[in-house]
């Protein structure tokens, strides 16, 4: 068994070497395919990260009239908590709001001094409502507006964060779809090119194949070098793409990180953290495309 594997591998390497230029062109096209697929997948991941980060920052802030009783605010908190769409409702009392304000402006003695002159209840109590899914916000807002608590609220901040997220999401969706379309075209081109490469290899080895059949080589031994050659093309393309992506992300990471300043997000770190999955998927994907294409060529042209 080991002898068979070693020999078919050697034959595959010889096949690759004999048609060196053709092999390089095939690998180059496969790189374009894997690169475009990886780019689309990467874009999707980055987009999802952006949406998640922005979503985490989105909530509904309800500022109550300063004269509202605390018991009414707590009742409103219970009202929102009872909604299944709501994840968390944080109650910020007037005292908490004042304390937070003071801590933020601790370096501004004039402002703090003027605050001391004012009534303690100058800042309103508020509820900070967050949900599991951003799509639930409209329903929550609607129920709030229909409730009796609406009159207790002086100001409600459910600004158009959702619109922004919707736009980001839409842009990413469009980019994803266009990217997938381009990738699909590259996949088709790659399959055709690999098919042709293996077909030419089979043609240039027709004498050897004929002799192999005559002297009793098994079908798998005759097919294996071609399948391995296909897998080798895929592996080389995947490794090259990974190297290009690594270098690309490494050098562009500072720019991307500064663009998302405050969001604690680094594409490079994301890919490094998910390294084994990325490498595994890249290699598996490239080899699958290559081997499937090879198998089609073998079935069509290598009669054993």
């Amino acid at each position, binding site marked *: 068994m080991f002898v068979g594997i070693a*020999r078919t591998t050697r034959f595959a390497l010889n096949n690759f070497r004999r048609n060196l230029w053709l092999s390089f062109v095939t690998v180059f096209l496969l790189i374009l395919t894997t690169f475009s697929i990886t780019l689309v997948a990467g874009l999707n991941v980055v987009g999802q990260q952006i949406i998640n980060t922005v979503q985490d920052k989105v909530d509904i802030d309800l500022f109550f009239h300063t004269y509202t009783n605390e018991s009414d605010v707590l009742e409103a908190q219970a009202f929102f908590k009872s909604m299944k769409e709501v994840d968390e409702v944080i109650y910020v009392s007037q005292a908490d709001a004042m304390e937070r304000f003071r801590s933020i402006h601790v370096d501004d003695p004039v402002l703090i001094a003027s605050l001391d002159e004012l009534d303690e209840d100058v800042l309103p109590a508020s509820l900070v409502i967050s949900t599991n899914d951003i799509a639930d916000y409209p329903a929550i807002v609607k129920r709030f507006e229909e409730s009796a608590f609406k009159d207790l609220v002086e100001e409600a901040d459910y600004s158009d964060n959702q619109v922004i997220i919707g736009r980001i999401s839409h842009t990413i969706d469009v980019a994803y779809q266009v990217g997938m379309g381009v990738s699909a075209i590259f996949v088709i081109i790659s399959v055709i090119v690999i098919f042709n490469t293996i077909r030419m290899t089979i043609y240039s080895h027709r*004498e*050897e194949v*004929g002799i192999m059949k005559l*002297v009793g080589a098994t*079908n798998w031994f005759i097919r294996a070098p071609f399948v391995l050659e296909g897998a080798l093309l895929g592996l080389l393309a995947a490794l090259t793409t990974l190297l290009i992506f690594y270098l690309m992300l490494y050098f562009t990471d500072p720019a991307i990180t500064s663009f998302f300043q405050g969001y604690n997000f680094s594409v490079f770190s994301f890919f490094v953290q998910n390294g084994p999955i990325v490498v595994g998927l890249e290699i598996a994907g490239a080899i699958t495309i290559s081997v499937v294409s090879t198998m089609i060529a073998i079935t069509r042209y290598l009669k054993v």
Partner: protein
Amino acid sequence: MIQFDNVSKSFPDGTVAAANLSFSIEPGEFVSIVGLSGAGKTTIARMIIAEEKPTEGSIVIGGWDISNIKNSEIPVLRRQIGVVFQDFKLLQRKTVAENVAFALQVCGAKKKKIQKIVPQVLKIVGLEDKADRFPDQMSGGEQQRVVIARALVHRPKILVADEPTGNIDTITAHEIIDLLLKINALGTTVVLVTHNPEIVNKIRKRVITVDNGTVISNRKSGKYTL
């Protein structure tokens, strides 16, 4: 050893290459299958090595009915039957020794075994001194010897030679036939397909004459009668 029972073979285009062929070949025999071009001789050779399957009838080799042999079983059969063709089928980029070794390599033989067998078979065919030459540095007769050496590496019980003298001159052809007789003398059943009357008449072994896909004569010590 080889049993053809009412074997017929027709092709999709309607050509009938064999019609109700029945004959048997015993172990250790040297049998010449003769006939004019298109008589069906090569089809018989191809059916013995399962390159073609009969449309009707049965072919039994060494007790194994190969009439409907599965594709996965063909390599097992081929390792028991050596094959020699008129057009040599040698790899030009490999030396004599490499060409012979190739037959063992692709069947998974270990290096030690290959190193042992290759010189042995080259000695049998008288090419032990030319192991490192390439096919294009050799005469037609020598190339055919290489093919015979390659056919012997699996120590086959049967050797099928389809027009082995077709591409070589008369003197060399006789040398090749002498070699086949020597191999037969060592116990291998030899099936020689030829349309060369001179050779058939010289060796005076069993002759099966085929015409239009049927056996028209089957003689123990025959001559070329067409």
